[in-house]
């Protein structure tokens, strides 16, 4: 089942970078506020001591007009920040206005406008700014306007992209159905949900704007006397860089620190808004000495004894689970989201997310001890894997053929030709039409059912002892699902491959599996045969409730039994953990 991360409501995370950025920026803002109050006279009064080196009176010397270099650098902070902020605001507001207005426009206008924006983005912005600045004439505000206008295309494209992706969300189309006027859709639904990325982008725009404004000043088109910003100070200083290098030091530091702090803030905000961030990874797996709660048989192909999987938060996601699979046996794991069934399967496959901690008394497949390091070749050839969503399990950038033959070529050391020929035959065996041309196609050109069958075919190439299939039919249409299930059935019959089959669908599990294990809350609740399950011959109240909650076309139930996990003596956590 697709799990969408729940974005808001996470606690804000302070990363070291963000902290440094905010501190540096606060210092800059403080300088901008305070410096002009105290230093303006020494920064702007002409004295008879031009172009002097550092002294007690002038720490960094004086400029060509005899003004204190340090004071000027500090006082310039205010104008620089004001200009950068104004430019950023103009670019951001303009960009947002265009980017969202484009979204409101009819499709044809929108496509044309997007093409134009794209072309404008491709255009070198410095040249564009230069032209605008030349037209507007030199000066603070024309520089601000020039850079702002030149930054608008990029920003509006990003806004349009974001608006496009958010406008695909259901709440936006619902709002349209409710008759909410366009502008209100923007203010209520689009902008609030773009706020976070927009804020990050704004920090980046701030940093680049700072540099671009100073570049314009460097070319002589920016701030004019008597005003001065970092760019103009640098422009003046670089003329004397060899005679008076100190003059350039302070503005350089100031501009770099300001830019860096904006960038760090942007990075920090991005990291804070990244749902993947903030995890700790712990990969150490220690054997547990806890007693087994349910027995597992030692002569089985797969033996899991007292498996516990712990989240970085310390929460136990799987709690002392034990199971075993005999050679040739099909074992089904059934349960709802969060029951721990996928985690169990992935820990047997050795593919758990790294931040999870695994402990078990025994965790083995054949003679492969999954608690230790194993020969990758044996892991790849002895365990076949089939995943849930065939649309995402294949690499979109690679052709099918090269992906499907990876195991053959890497681990079985087969030549490319042999591997391809073998795979083509395997595909033909599972009734995939035109197997040769399928091998040359990309995943997106194949249907989900075809991809899933190809995945099964490639997992069989090395003749594995065990296939682990994690919800392999959930993303498939019902007729295709039946097809794929037949495939699994015939593999098991013909090759005697053992299977661990995970599903949330009781109907699927009861049809395919010899043994069915019902899980909830990270624990095994009941173990029964597929036949018993089909007959409704179940004992655990949870399993019973599960059956009662399932609508069926065989019988019309007036009311389904609403199944509440808290009715059973289990952990009632509904939090989803994606493997």
């Amino acid at each position, binding site marked *: 089942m697709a799990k969408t991360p729940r974005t808001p409501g996470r606690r804000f995370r302070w990363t070291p970078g963000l902290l440094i950025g905010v501190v540096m920026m606060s210092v800059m803002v403080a300088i901008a506020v305070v410096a002009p109050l105290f230093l303006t006279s020494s920064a702007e009064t002409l004295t008879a001591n031009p172009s002097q080196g550092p002294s007690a009176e002038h720490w960094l010397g004086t400029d060509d007009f005899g003004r204190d270099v340090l004071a000027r650098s500090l006082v310039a902070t205010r104008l620089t920040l004001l200009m950068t902020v104004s430019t950023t605001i103009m670019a951001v507001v303009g960009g947002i206005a265009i980017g969202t207005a484009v979204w409101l426009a009819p499709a044809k206008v929108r496509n044309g406008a997007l093409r134009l924006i794209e072309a404008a983005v491709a255009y070198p912005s410095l040249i564009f700014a230069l032209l605008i600045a030349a037209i507007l004439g030199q000066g603070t505000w024309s520089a601000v306007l020039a850079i702002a206008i030149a930054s608008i295309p990029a920003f509006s494209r990003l806004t349009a992209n974001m608006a496009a992706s958010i406008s695909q969300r*259901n709440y936006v189309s619902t709002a349209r159905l409710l008759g909410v006027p366009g502008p209100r859709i923007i203010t209520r639904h689009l902008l609030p949900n773009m706020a976070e990325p927009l804020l990050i982008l704004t920090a980046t725009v701030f940093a680049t704007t700072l540099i671009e404004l100073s570049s314009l000043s460097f070319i002589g088109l920016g701030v004019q006397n008597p005003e001065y910003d970092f760019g103009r100070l640098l422009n003046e200083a670089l003329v004397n860089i060899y005679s008076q290098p100190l003059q350039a030091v302070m503005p350089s530091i100031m501009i770099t620190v300001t830019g860096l702090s904006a960038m760090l803030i942007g990075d920090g905000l991005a990291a804070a808004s990244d749902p993947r961030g903030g995890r700790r990874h712990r990969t150490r797996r220690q054997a547990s000495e806890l007693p087994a709660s349910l027995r597992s048989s030692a002569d089985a192909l797969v033996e899991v004894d007292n498996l516990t999987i712990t989240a970085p938060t310390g929460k136990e996601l799987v709690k002392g689970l034990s199971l075993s699979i005999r050679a040739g046996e099909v074992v089904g794991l059934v349960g709802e989201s969060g029951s721990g069934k996928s985690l169990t399967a992935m820990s047997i496959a050795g593919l758990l997310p790294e931040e999870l901690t695994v402990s078990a008394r025994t965790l083995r497949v054949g003679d492969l001890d999954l608690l230790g390091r194993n020969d990758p070749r044996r892991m790849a050839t002895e365990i076949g894997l089939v995943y849930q969503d065939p649309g995402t399990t294949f690499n979109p950038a690679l052709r099918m053929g090269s992906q499907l033959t990876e195991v053959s070529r890497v681990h079985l050391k087969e030549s490319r030709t042999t591997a391809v020929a073998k795979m083509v035959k395997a595909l033909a065996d599972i009734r995939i039409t035109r197997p040769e041309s399928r091998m040359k196609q990309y995943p997106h050109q194949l249907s989900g059912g075809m991809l899933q069958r190809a995945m099964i075919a490639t997992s069989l190439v090395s003749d594995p002892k065990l296939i682990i299939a994690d919800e392999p039919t959930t993303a498939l249409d019902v007729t295709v699902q039946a097809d794929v299930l037949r495939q699994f059935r015939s593999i098991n019959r013909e090759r005697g491959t053992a299977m661990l089959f995970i599903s949330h669908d*009781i109907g699927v599990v009861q049809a395919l599996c010899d043994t069915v294990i019902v899980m909830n809350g990270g624990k095994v609740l009941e173990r029964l045969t597929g036949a018993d399950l089909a007959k409704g011959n179940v004992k655990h109240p949870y399993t019973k409730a599960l059956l009662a909650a399932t609508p069926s076309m065989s019988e019309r139930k007036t009311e389904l039994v609403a199944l509440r996990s808290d009715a059973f003596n289990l952990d009632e956590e509904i939090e989803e953990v994606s493997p």
Partner: protein
Amino acid sequence: MTDSNSAQAAGSAPVLEVKDLVVTFGAGSSAVTVLKGVNASISRGQTLGIVGESGSGKSTLAKAIVGLVHASSGSILVDGIDVGRMTGPQRRDMRRKVQMIPQDPYSSLNPRRTIGQTLAEAIDPVRSSPMLHREKIEYWLSTIRLDADVASRYPHEFSGGQRQRIAVARALAVEPRLIIADEITSALDLSVQAELLNLVGRLRRELDLTMAFISHDLDVVHHVSDSIMVLYNGDVVEAGSVDAVYQNPQDPYTRKLIDSVPGGPGFDIG
């Protein structure tokens, strides 16, 4: 085409009538026809189940009915009025008559708006202050068995099933003539699905809802619908009352579909 066999008030015009609906995307050589002349009708108080596999056009049909997709030809009549012939303000009014409950509980609610704001917007799209509509919000929350203080909370504080219930409440709050439920249970766990299906069933009885219920899950459609329509590749291959179609499917595709349902009587994987 679909005629309910239940004992409904005779003579009342169908709430929804779809006639020869064709929807084509793109133009020229790259044109793809997604719906190829679909006919359907739903009478007041009835629920039509629409089943089909991916690519069958069932979601496009839903979007066409609510007006998110333009019909290439054919007509869609709501309360006997052709939606396609309407002009600006009329159409906006019409839009509110048909409401859709979307599939994904996580993207169906704006994460930055409280439940109260979301419902208030459904009640009045322009003046949408929750304060103005407090009573109504409380009423609709009570119909989906949520407390009134829920109105000040944000979507992320709710589970998937609860969100889907809120989405139902939002659709109801518009007091539409017709509700289109597009795969509303497909993202939910069994237990939550049961709860939602029960809610829908109860509301149908209590509020006399008219619904189109779209799903790929034949079990679910069977559970909620009065009549059913099977779409395959843009065509209606079979339509009729639920019992008739499930027990005695006429079209080979319908048969195959029903036989593919795990746990069903015809299911066999050898």
